[in-house]
């Protein structure tokens, strides 16, 4: 059967338009705009413009070149401060409660005369890692997500994008990348799907490859938990939450800076080109529906992220218990594997267990910290761990953590390969294993280099013995 083709008609059409194709297109678009303008003019009447003016006045301050960034940093800091200050107490309570249950479970296994390996695998492996996921991750999530959703509902995030827009243009990337990056704060996989709003394939690729440099829902709680475990207690109490807040906010700013630098580097090397222009729309401020925000952020985000963590942490906890209890010669399998990674990890200011936790955390970033705790607990002498103070004791006294270790761990959490879901999404969006591989390699390389630099500079400066 003859193939139908529009080619002759397209040729015919070009006879009408040929010398002035772009003018023709402009004329079509202009007619549509003019019609819309006429109709709107006929049916809409304003009796007052005061509210609109009020919105504009707020925008002039929030997006001003002078105040935009201090305000942004301030808002970020307040959100983190509330989260860090608020998460400590419920975390402690949850830990106490969940480990009380663990003790009762152990009693139950004793009464039933269950074999040691079964008790070890189920209670010390699976249950314990679940308990850590919930105790360490749930409180920061339950506080952070609603606050973040409120900002989103209010209309603040597009203003953030507006502030950052000119920097992205300077970096040779698309202004809309500021939006996709902000989406990445929620979830990198979502941020990568959002890259579809960028028209040019070159700029979409830049946005895709650099989306991972901002912490997502899964990594925020890790950062916050680490900061509160570590810094809370090491400085005097009144100062501790302020220092912790600055640390997380600083890390986010660092992530944005890395996003811009890598975008710039990409647009100067393998993805060369000029940034295309666009107009960013600032939506009106809306009064958030607080009740709905609370319900939605708890149900959609907190429970979603938590359940993902639980599903992955359960088998991971079991696996770690097995690795920690299988011995070859005199060493456990866990310590052998961690030992392999130790040289590189030490160079980066980490240790083998931390690096191993990041690798095992590939399916979901939210389980990195619980896995790390598990491997420390299983591998070390310390078997009883029932409060956050014990956790600090475990990290600092048993495993020699310093503030530098915490800093390097947080930096590597910010800059390492994207989680499995995100990688899968990149593959699906770009249809290319090559770009997917690059999306994993770029942040990993940045993370390794930055960690090595931080570690060695700090040591060389003699800030840490």
């Amino acid at each position, binding site marked *: 059967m*003859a*193939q*139908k*083709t*529009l080619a002759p*008609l*397209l040729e*015919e*059409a*070009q006879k*009408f*338009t040929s010398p002035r*194709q772009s003018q*023709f*297109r402009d*004329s*079509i678009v202009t*007619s*549509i*705009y003019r*019609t*819309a*303008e006429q*109709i*709107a003019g*006929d*049916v*809409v*009447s*304003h*009796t*007052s413009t*005061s*509210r*609109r003016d009020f919105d504009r006045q707020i925008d002039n301050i929030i997006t001003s070149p002078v105040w935009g960034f201090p305000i942004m940093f301030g808002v970020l800091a307040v959100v983190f401060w509330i989260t860090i200050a608020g998460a400590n107490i419920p975390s402690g309570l949850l830990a106490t409660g969940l480990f009380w249950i663990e003790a009762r479970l152990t009693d139950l296994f004793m009464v039933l005369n269950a074999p040691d390996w079964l008790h070890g695998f189920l209670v010390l492996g699976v249950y314990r890692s679940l308990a850590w996921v919930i105790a360490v991750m749930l409180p920061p999530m339950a506080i952070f997500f609603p606050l973040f*959703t409120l900002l*989103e*509902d209010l*209309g603040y*995030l*597009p203003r953030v994008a507006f502030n950052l827009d000119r920097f992205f243009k300077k970096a040779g990337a698309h202004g*809309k990348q500021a*939006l996709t990056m902000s*989406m990445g704060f929620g979830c990198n996989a979502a941020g990568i*799907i*959002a890259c*579809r*709003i*960028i*028209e040019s394939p070159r700029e979409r690729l830049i946005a895709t490859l650099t989306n991972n440099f901002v912490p997502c829902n899964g990594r925020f709680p890790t950062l916050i938990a680490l900061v509160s475990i570590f810094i809370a207690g090491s400085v005097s109490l009144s100062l501790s939450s302020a220092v912790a807040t600055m640390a997380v906010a600083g890390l986010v700013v660092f992530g944005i800076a890395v996003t811009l630098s890598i975008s710039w580097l990409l647009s100067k090397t393998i993805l060369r080109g000029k940034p295309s222009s666009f107009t960013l*729309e600032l*939506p*009106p401020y*809306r009064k*958030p529906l607080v009740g709905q925000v609370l319900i*939605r952020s708890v*149900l*959609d985000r907190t429970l979603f992220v938590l359940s993902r963590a639980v599903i992955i942490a359960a088998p991971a906890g079991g696996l770690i218990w097995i690795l920690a209890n299988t011995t070859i010669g005199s060493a456990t399998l866990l310590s052998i594997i961690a030992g392999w990674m130790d040289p590189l990890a030490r160079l980066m200011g980490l240790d083998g267990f931390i690096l191993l936790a990041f690798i095992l955390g590939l399916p979901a970033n939210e389980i990195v910290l619980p896995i790390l705790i598990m491997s420390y607990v299983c591998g070390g002498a310390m078997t009883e761990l029932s409060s956050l103070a014990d956790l600090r004791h475990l990290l600092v006294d048993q495993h020699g953590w310093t503030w530098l270790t915490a800093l390097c761990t947080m930096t590597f959490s910010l800059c390492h390969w994207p989680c499995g879901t995100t990688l899968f999404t990149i593959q*699906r969006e770009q*249809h290319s294993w090559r770009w997917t591989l690059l999306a994993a390699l770029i942040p990993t390389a940045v993370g390794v280099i930055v960690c090595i630099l931080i570690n060695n500079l700090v040591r060389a400066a003699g800030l840490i013995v």
Partner: protein
Amino acid sequence: MGLTYQSTGQLTTREIFNANTDNCDYVIALAGNPNTGKSTVFNALTGLRQHTGNWPGKTVQRAEGTYIHKSRRYRLIDLPGTYSLLANSADEEVARDFICFARPDATIVVVDATCLERNLNLALQVMEITDKVIVCVNLIDEARRKKIQLNTAKLSDRLGVPVVATAARSGEGLSRLMDLVDDVAMGRILPKPQPVRYSKEVEEAIAQLEPRVRALVGEDINSRWLTLRLLDCDTRLVRTIENYLNARETAAAVPLAQEGLA
């Protein structure tokens, strides 16, 4: 995730867009600019909890859900929010291809009452592709607060399609919206969109080309709109349409009346 970017490059018919059309009576598309409360309308109608946000570009992937009205089952497809359908980006292409090839029984265009002018651009473009359009003027509560008055009867008159004012967050106007969707899908209301009038030069080109375009594509695709796209030199769309036409030909359940140019 049926409707992904991949699927839009290839043959796109309703069956591919959503495999399970059997268990519902009508397919309704939901289009609109970003940040007009489109997802809120979607959630309010379907009872689903898609995440909404004050955030342009929230819905990039489409969502779908069903609702029952007057004992008929409707499948509602939430298209990505776009400012136009001139297909500058993947999400615009997704929205355009769905309206063009999946041919929904009705398309709701959600517009923001507080900035009607900018939002009407999209409504006008949708109305060029399909007649079965209902314009939903959302955020009417916000417009009231901002002291913006809107004459919906006049708007309906000027556009030639039914118009309903809603405040989806509080549920205002939604039952009227569902009634109108029902009327349009059932064919009780036949919207007659007022076409956009172009410049003399463009209109003359359309007058010459459109009959031949119509002869080739038949009535499935709006020939005035396609002629405009030819004049616009949208080669990607042309390729998609050729694929669609040839696939339809091969399927050839119903031979077309006009085979003249094939």
